[in-house]
C-alpha cells in the first residue's frame, strides 16, 4: 500500500462531517439571531464601523429629540405670550378710544369721571395680564424669583433675563418677552401712563393730548413686541419641522445600519436550512458500508 496517498479513514470522515455540521449550524444560528432580533448589528465586532455610526446616530437622535422637546416647550411660552399680548392690544385699543372720547370738549366732568373709571378697570386688567404666569413663573418677569412681574403700582419686579431654549446645536433662542421691554416700569411705563390718563380725565383734561401720544408710543412698542413674538414663534415652528425631517432621516439611517433586510435574511435562512439538511443527509451516509459488509 502506498503511504504517499492521502489515506481516508472512518474517523476522518466522521470528524470532518461533524465540523461541517457545526459550521452549518453556526451559520443557521447567526441568521436566526438576525431574524429574531431584527438586527444585523448585534455586537460591535459584527461591524466596528457600523457600530460606531450606530452609536453616533443614536446620540444625535436623542439630541434631536431633546431639541424637539425644547422647541415644544418654547412654543408654549411664545404661544402664551402671543395670546396675552393680543389681549393687551385689544384692551389698549379700548383705552385709546376712551382717551380720544375724553378729548371731546363737549363732555362734562362727570362723563370724564366715568371714562376714568373704565380706564382704571382696564388698567387693573392689564396689570393682571402683565402678571400672567406660565409654569409657575411670571411670563413677563424674565428670570425673576418674585411671584409677579408687576406690583399694584405698576413697578416692574422682574429682570431683563432671557428664558432660553436650545433649539439646535449651538443655537439658543429667547422664548420670553420681558415686561420691562414691553410695558416699561414706573411713571414712564404703561401703567404709569394709564394712571396719568385716569388722573387727567378726572382733573386735567388739557393734558389728554399728551397722554394720547404716550399711549400711541406704548402701543407701538407692544405691537412690535407682538410682531417679534410672532416671528420667533414661526422660527420655532420652522425649526421644529426641519427637526422632524432630521429625526426621520436619522431613524432611517440608524435602521439602515442596524436593521436586517428581511427578504434577504429570509432567503438566507431558507438557503442555510437546505444546506443544513443536506449536511445532515450526508452525515447519515457516513456510516458507509465498509468491506465488513461484504465479507462472509
Amino acid at each position, binding site marked *: 500500500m502506498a503511504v504517499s496517498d492521502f489515506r481516508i*479513514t472512518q474517523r476522518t470522515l466522521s470528524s470532518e462531517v461533524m465540523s461541517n455540521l457545526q459550521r452549518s449550524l453556526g451559520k443557521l444560528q447567526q441568521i436566526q439571531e438576525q431574524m429574531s432580533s431584527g438586527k444585523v448589528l448585534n455586537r460591535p465586532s459584527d461591524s466596528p464601523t457600523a457600530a*460606531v455610526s450606530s452609536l453616533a446616530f443614536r446620540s444625535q437622535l436623542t439630541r434631536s429629540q431633546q431639541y424637539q422637546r425644547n422647541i415644544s416647550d418654547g412654543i408654549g411660552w411664545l404661544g402664551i405670550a402671543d395670546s396675552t399680548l393680543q389681549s393687551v392690544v385689544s384692551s389698549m385699543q379700548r383705552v385709546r378710544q376712551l382717551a380720544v372720547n375724553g378729548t371731546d370738549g363737549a363732555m362734562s366732568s362727570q362723563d370724564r369721571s366715568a371714562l376714568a373709571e373704565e380706564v382704571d378697570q382696564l388698567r387693573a386688567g392689564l396689570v393682571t395680564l402683565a402678571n400672567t404666569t406660565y409654569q409657575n413663573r411670571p411670563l413677563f418677569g424674565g428670570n425673576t424669583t418674585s411671584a409677579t412681574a408687576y406690583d399694584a403700582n405698576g413697578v416692574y419686579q422682574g429682570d431683563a433675563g432671557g428664558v432660553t431654549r436650545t433649539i439646535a446645536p449651538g443655537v439658543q433662542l429667547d422664548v420670553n418677552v420681558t415686561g420691562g421691554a414691553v410695558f416699561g416700569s414706573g411713571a414712564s411705563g404703561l401703567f404709569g401712563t394709564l394712571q396719568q390718563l385716569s388722573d387727567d380725565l378726572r382733573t386735567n383734561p388739557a393734558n389728554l393730548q399728551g397722554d394720547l401720544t404716550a399711549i400711541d408710543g406704548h402701543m407701538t412698542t407692544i405691537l412690535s413686541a407682538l410682531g417679534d413674538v410672532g416671528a420667533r414663534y414661526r422660527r420655532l415652528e420652522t425649526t421644529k419641522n426641519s427637526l422632524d425631517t432630521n429625526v426621520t432621516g436619522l431613524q432611517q439611517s440608524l435602521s439602515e445600519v442596524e436593521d436586517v433586510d428581511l427578504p434577504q435574511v429570509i432567503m438566507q435562512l431558507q438557503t442555510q436550512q437546505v444546506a443544513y439538511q443536506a449536511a445532515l443527509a450526508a452525515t447519515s451516509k457516513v456510516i458507509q458500508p465498509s468491506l465488513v459488509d461484504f465479507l462472509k
Partner: protein
Amino acid sequence: MSDFGALRIALSALYAAQKGLDVTGHNLANVNTDGYSRQTVTTVANAGPLTPALFSKWNDGGQGVTVEDVQRSRDVFLEARSYLEHGADSSLKTVQTTLSNLEQMYGEPSDTGIQQTLADFWGGWQDVANNPGDQSARTQLIQLGGALTTMFNSDASTIAQQRNDAIEQLGTTVNEINTMAANIAQLNGAIQNAQVAGLQTTDLQDQRDLLISKLSDDIGVTARPNANGMVDVYVDGGPLVRGTEAQTLAVDSSGPTVAVRWTKDNYPANSSAGQVGGLLTSINDILPRYATSLDNLATQLRDQVNQVHGAIGGTIAAGNQDLSSAGTLQFNLSVNGTALPAVSVTGADWSGAGGAAALQTALQSALDTATGTPGQVVATVTGGAGSPLKVSLAAANPTDQVTVSAVSGNNGFTTLLGDTLVGLDGVGGRPFFSGTNASTLAVAPGVIADPGTIAAAVASNGPLDGQGALSIGALSASTTGADSTYRSMIVQLGVEAQSANRQVSIQDEVTSQVDSNRESQAGVNLDEEMVSLLQYQHAYSAAARYMTVVDQTLDTLINHTGA
C-alpha cells in the same frame, strides 16, 4: 535440513499469521480510540547462518519467518506541528471568549447601553435648563446621573470579576498541567523499562503522546525524543518533563502582573500559547486595558461636568471696570463646608494697564484674610486694559472644595464672580460627580441630598436662569467629550473582537487540517484492516495446509516405506 525442519517452517508461518491477525484485531478494536496509532507487523524471512563456519557450507534454503517488530504509523513532524497549532488555537479561543464577554457586558449598540444613558443624561440637563425652578426636572437629572454611574460601577466590577475568574481558571489549568506532566514522566519510565526488557511499547507511547497533545492545548509545548523511547517536554524553553522527571508550575498572582513560574526556582514560564497563554493575555493585557479605559472614561466624564458645574469666576466688561464708587465688594466663601468670614475687596479703578494685577493682589489678600491660610484659595485675574477682566478662584489643593455665594445686599459676588454657576440657593463651586474611578463614580452626595444645589444658573442672571445647565447639556456634542471617547473605546473593542474571531476561524481551519493529516497517517481504515484480515487468514490456512503436507510426507516415509 532435517525432515522435521519443514515442520518448524510451518510453525513459524503459523506464528507470523497469528501475530498478523492479533494486530489487525487490535487495530479494529481501537478504531475509535483517541490518540491510537494504527500498528503494522514487520516480518523478516529466516535466512541461513549469515557467516558460514570454516569448512562448512549451507545448502539449504530459508528457515521460515520471524515477526521482527510491531510498529506505530506515526509522523513525528506532524505531531510537533499539531502541538504547535493546538496551542495557538486554544490560546486564541481563550482571548476570543474574553473579548466576547466584554462585548456582551457593554451590550452596544442598544437602547440600554452607556451611550444611550449618556445621551439621556445630557438631555436631563436641558430639561433642567427648561425649568430651572422645577424640582422634578432636577430630581430626574439626579436619577439619570445615578443610572449612568451605576452602569460604570457595575461594568468596572464585572471586568474585575472577569479577571479574578480568569486567574482562578489559570490556577486550575496549571494544576492540570502538573498532573499531566507527572503522568507523562511516569509513562516515560514505563516505556524505558519495557524497551530495555524488549517488550512492546506502542500502546504506552500512544497514551503518552495523547497526554502531550492535551498538554499542548493547556500550554504551548515542544517535545524532543530522549533515549529508550522516552520524550522530553519543554515549556518556554524550560524542561517540564525530562525523562522520568517532571517539574511543576505555579501561578504567581502576588504582583500586578500575574505570571506562571517554575516551582523549583521561581523563574517565569511565560508561554504565549495554549489556554495558559490566552488566559495570561486576558489577565495581564486585555482586561486591565479595558478597565483602565473605563476608569479614564469615568474620570473624563466627572472632570468634564465638574469643571463647568463647579467653576468659580467672572468677567468684568471693558467699560465696566472702574468700581471705585461701588464701595466694598463682598462674597461668602467656604472651604470643605466650613463657612469663613466674607471676603471683602474695596472697589477701585481696574480699567487701566496693571488693573488685572492690582485686582488679583487685592482679591488674593482678601482671600488670605478670610481663609487665614495664605494661598489655600488662589485668585487669578487676566485681561483688562481695554479687554474684559477674567477672574477665577480655585483651591490650591485639588481635594479642597471651595464654594462661594452672594452676601445679601452687596453686589460684589455678581460683579467679581458673575459667571459662577449657582444652584437655587445662589451657591456655586460644588461638584456634580464624586469618585475617583469607574467603580466609585457617583453623583455627589450633596447634590443627591438637595437637588436645588444643581448649578443650573449663571450667578449674574439670577437663580432661575438655565444657562449653566445648557452649557453642561451642550457637552453632549463635544468632539473631545466622554461620548466620543466611549465610542472610540467600543470601536476598539469591536475591531479587536472581530480580529480575534477571524484569527480563531483561520486557526480552526489550520488545526483541523493538521489533525486530519495526522489522522490520515495514524488512523485505522476498516477496509484496509479487512484486507489484512483476509491476507493473514489465508496465510494461516496456507501454513496449516503446508503442515498437513509435511505430515503426510512424513507418514509416507515412516509408515509406508520399507515394509
